[in-house]
Every structure is written in structure tokens, then in C-alpha cells.
């Protein structure tokens, strides 16, 4: 009977119920969309820099990250046993070095990345980053250059770059390789300084036979904390170091932390506004209905039962509002996931200066929706404490006099 009463009360004053449900829908839509945008931006940063370039976890010779010299390299046989670990899907060996490249009358220092073409193609999808020319093949060895390098040095496919630098154990590194493709690493800073060659070519250039500077640890899922622990447990940590993306890119981690804190603050403000707005609605509805509550109590309905009816009404409207809010939010979130917001003008410059792509897609992580829908549901219930308190203290005579 109480449920029937609550249900019918909702439909009695449709406009009133619509106002309440609409305010909940708006709250859910705004909170979910805002957070999806924020998490989407982080996701994109991680995708661009971590999952499609650095990997979540890397293995280096101890001290390499502090002093990036080729002398801090290691043999792949030292990490062979890792391939048998459960959470690790692959190990991609790399050589990371530096050299001066020259073409015609232009010279530029670049970061050289020697990679296993097949592994990088399969796992990092390096081939998909080729925007001009071709990816490596058995017959086409050469260089993939960042599109920034191409623009700065005014290069074309087929041009040959001359390398000059320092190789393993103080040897001279020199060589000349043709450009086979141009890649877009989605990060302007990387594009301006990256030249990719095959591992074989890099070993030859730097006189580093059978050695690498880096091994990217491929994961079956994004749980890099577990993978890092697994890796540490399986290798000789006196000789090698295992680093996660947060350790390798502390500025990115800090940026995300600061932005997340800022987002949380904005969200708190938003939730405060939502809370006061919902409280205003509840205040209005409670005052409007105190006469009715007074009558029910006067004729013999226990206050607890009146409270149950009021709570049921709130719960039904909150569920309707939250579910509808999620339905309304989903197309927006999906649209901006497929068509990310493209920053332009000063915003674009600022973001690119930090080395990130000026795109903000929304995140489709369902936990964002459930978390914020849940928070708003709780807010709705909390603001209704006023109604419950009002009913608890209601004097039927005074209520009916109004």
C-alpha cells in the first residue's frame, strides 16, 4: 500500500515530479560528462605517450635512466626467463641513443630508437603511425622519421640522413640510412626529435652487437603494478632496473595528479551546486506537502509510515533520474569519444608545449558513470533527510492550518 501511495503521488503532480527528475538528470549528465572528459584526456595522454610509445613498464640496465649512455646496456639473454611469466605478453627490445643527423646543409640532434619492426608493429602498432612512405620491411630497411624532424630539416622520402655520434664503449657511431617513412607519434615533442630504425641497424650504428638499452614489457592488461612486481621478482635487480611509466614520466604523473585534484575540486563545487539545487526542490516540495502529511498523521498514519512513503517517492524519482541521466549522458560521451574535442588557438599551443596531442576524447570507462550516478543518488537521499526530519517533527494541527 505504501508503495502504491508513493507511486501514485509521483504521477499526481507531474510537473513537480518532472522538475525533480530533471534536476537529477541534469546533475548526472553534467557530472558524468565532465569526469569522462577529464579521464578521457588522461587516457589519451597515456595512450599517446605510454601505451603507444614507451610501454607501461620498461627494463634497463641499472643506472640507464639516470645516465643514458650506451654503456648502460644489457644482453637480452638476461631477461629471457621473463617471457614465461603469466602477465607478460611480450618483450620488445630497443636501443635508445642520440646522434647528430645531417642532410644537405642542415644538422640536428635527434633521439634514435632502434626497434624490432615485427614486435613494434604487432604490439605498439608503430606501422599505423606511418603517415607518409612505408613501414619497415625485410627489403626496406632505413629510417622512420618523426614528422617534426621532416618539417624542420625539410626532408623527403628517399633522402639519406648521415649520422654521427658516440657508440658503445667510446667508439665512434657513424652511418648513413635512407628515409623510408614519416611517422606521427601524436606528441609534437616526440615528433620533433625522434628517428626510428631497426634494432639491427642501431646495433650496427652504435657498435652494440647483441645488446639493448631498453626492453618494453608488454602486458596482457593495463595492470602495470602487478606486471612490475612480477618482472622485479623474475630478474636480477642488482644488474637491471624495472621502471613504470610514472617513474619514467614523473611530470606526466604530476600533471595528471594536479589536474585530477583540480577536477575533483570542480566536481565538489558542482556537487555542492547540485546538492543545493536538489535541496531547494526538496524544500519546496516538502513545504507544499506538509498539509497532506499533517492529514495522514491526524487520521492515524504513523510518522514512520509517512516517512517511508516520502522515501519511496524519492528513491523512485532518484532511480528514474539517474537512469535517464545515464541514458542522456551516454550519447554525448560516445559522440565525443568518437569525435574528440579538437583544441585550437592558444589552448592547442599550451597543450602541445607540454608534449601532448591537442585532442580531448571522452572516456567510456563505465565506472565513471556508475560512480557519479551513485554519488548523485546518495546526494538525493541525503537532501531528503530534511523531509524526514520535517515529518518527524510535524505537528498535524499546524500543518493542516497552513
Amino acid at each position, binding site marked *: 500500500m505504501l508503495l502504491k501511495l508513493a507511486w501514485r503521488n509521483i504521477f499526481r503532480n507531474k510537473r513537480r515530479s518532472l522538475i525533480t527528475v530533471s534536476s537529477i538528470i541534469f546533475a548526472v549528465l553534467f557530472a558524468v560528462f565532465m569526469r569522462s572528459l577529464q579521464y578521457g584526456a588522461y587516457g589519451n595522454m597515456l595512450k599517446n605517450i605510454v601505451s603507444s610509445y614507451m610501454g607501461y613498464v620498461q627494463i634497463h640496465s641499472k643506472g640507464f635512466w639516470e645516465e643514458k649512455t650506451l654503456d648502460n646496456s644489457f644482453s637480452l639473454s638476461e631477461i629471457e626467463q621473463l617471457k614465461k611469466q603469466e602477465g607478460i605478453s611480450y618483450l620488445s627490445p630497443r636501443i635508445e641513443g642520440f646522434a647528430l643527423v645531417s642532410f644537405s646543409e642542415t644538422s640536428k640532434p635527434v633521439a634514435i630508437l632502434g626497434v624490432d619492426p615485427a614486435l613494434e608493429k604487432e604490439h605498439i602498432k608503430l606501422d599505423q603511425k606511418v603517415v607518409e612512405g612505408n613501414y619497415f620491411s625485410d627489403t626496406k630497411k632505413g629510417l622512420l622519421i618523426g614528422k617534426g624532424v621532416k618539417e624542420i630539416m625539410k626532408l623527403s622520402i628517399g633522402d639519406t640522413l648521415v649520422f654521427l655520434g658516440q657508440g658503445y664503449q667510446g667508439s665512434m657511431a657513424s652511418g648513413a640510412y635512407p628515409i623510408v617513412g614519416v611517422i606521427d607519434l601524436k606528441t609534437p615533442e616526440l615528433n620533433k626529435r625522434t628517428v626510428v630504425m631497426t634494432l639491427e641497424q642501431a646495433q650496427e650504428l652504435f657498435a652494440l652487437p647483441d645488446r639493448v638499452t631498453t626492453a618494453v614489457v608488454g602486458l596482457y592488461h593495463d595492470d602495470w603494478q602487478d606486471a612490475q612486481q612480477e618482472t622485479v621478482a623474475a630478474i636480477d635487480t642488482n644488474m637491471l632496473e624495472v621502471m613504470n611509466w610514472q617513474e619514467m614520466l614523473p611530470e606526466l604523473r604530476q600533471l595528471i595528479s594536479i589536474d585530477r585534484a583540480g577536477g575533483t575540486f570542480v566536481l565538489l563545487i558542482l556537487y555542492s551546486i547540485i546538492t543545493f539545487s536538489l535541496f531547494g526542490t526538496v524544500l519546496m516540495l516538502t513545504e507544499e506537502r506538509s498539509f497532506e502529511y499533517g*492529514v495522514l498523521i491526524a487520521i*492515524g498514519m504513523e510518522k514512520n509510515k509517512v516517512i517511508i512513503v516520502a522515501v519511496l517517492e524519492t528513491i523512485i524519482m532518484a532511480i528514474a533520474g539517474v537512469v535517464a541521466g545515464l541514458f542522456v549522458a551516454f550519447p554525448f560521451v560516445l559522440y565525443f569519444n568518437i569525435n574528440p574535442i579538437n583544441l585550437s588557438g592558444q589552448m592547442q599551443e599550451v597543450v602541445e608545449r607540454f608534449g601532448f596531442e591537442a585532442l580531448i576524447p571522452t572516456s567510456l570507462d563505465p565506472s565513471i558513470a556508475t560512480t557519479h550516478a551513485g554519488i548523485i543518488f546518495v546526494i538525493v537521499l541525503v537532501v531528503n533527510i530534511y523531509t524526514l526530519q520535517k515529518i518527524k517533527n510535524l505537528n498535524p494541527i499546524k500543518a493542516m492550518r497552513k
Partner: protein
Amino acid sequence: MIQASNIHKTYNDGKVKVHALRGIDVEIKEGEFTAIVGPSGSGKTTLLNIVGGLDTPTLGEVHISDTNIAQLSENELIDFRLNHIGFVFQSYNLIPVLTAKENVEFLMLLQKRDEEERNERTTKLLKAVGLEDQINKKPNEMSGGQQQRVAVARALASKPDFVLADEPTANLDSKSTANLLDIMLRLNEEENITFVFSTHDQRVIDRAKRVITVEDGKILSDETR
């Protein structure tokens, strides 16, 4: 049955103290059809509220069926009202989302009476007030007179010791008033139901069997016809 002794009620209206009732003694027996009359502000509604356990006296005691209602806790009082007192209000105050049948049945549901008894009593009461063909109508689909008759049926549904009616005809036209009074009198005579109502409607006063006149918070006269 109802015994109110030395009832005083004082309100604080801002800085001014208002003495609504100044020592009322009244006894109402089972089967009476009593009108409490008086001009506006005389204290008749306050007296009715105190007798009905909706308000508490500043001084004095109200005994209903040997229970001193002043000693009951809030929840006990609500429960007492549910099981012992029926209410009819000036503006009907039916539950707008429920049909006539559901409104009458409502108090019996609160009393946890079984379905068969509820159906039987609801049908009987709606028939008694002449609304057996309106059972599925909601209050906004009925006239004021019809709504007040549903309110009478609702007041009787819980099998109360007596029915308190505050200006029950104030919003009714003369035809509806006469109709309602006929029903209430018939229930009083045939089923020995006790009615106590406040009114200043002469049509009601004329048909009451006992008239208690209140003025300035005191009983001015008590006439049994």
C-alpha cells in the same frame, strides 16, 4: 465515554497570550449527536482538536474510554486516533491519489485488517453514504458533497468509538448539507455511532440532539433536545 475536565488552552501569539479555552468540563456519552457551536474564535475547534488528541491542553485532562490521552506518547496517540477516533474535516482532506474505495479502505490497511473484512466493510460504508456507484472515482472526480460523504465513510471504517467532525458542512451547498446530515443521523440512530462536530451552520444546529455553545473559551450553554 469522552470526559474532558478543566480544559485550559493558552497560545502564545507573538508576545500576546491567547486563552483559547478557559476551564471546560464536558462529558459526551456513547450514541450522542452533539454540536459544539459558537462564533469564530470561540474555541470550538480547539476543543475538538484536544478531544481528538490532535492538540494537548495547557491544563486539564481528557479521558476517552478510560484512557487519559495526555499520558500517551506521540506514537501511542497516533495509534489511539487510528483505532478510537474518526475524523471528518471541513475540506474533506481525502487522499487525492486514491479512489473512494481506497480512501475508505486506507485506515483498515493501517489497522492490518484482512482483505475480506476490508472489502466487506468498504462496500457497506460506501453504500451507507450512497456512493456505491462511485467507488473507483478519485476525489477530484467527485463533488464536494460526495467527497465529504467519502470522508464520513473513511472516518467510520476503522470502527472508531466516535467521529469528530470539524465544520463538516462549511463547504457544502444546502442540498449536500441536508444529504450529509441525513446520513450522519441515520448512522447515529441505526448503528449508535457517536458524532461530535463543531459548527456555526444553523442547519446543522437545528438537527443536533445536543448543542454545546462555547464563547470566549467557556461553555455558555449545554442543551440536550
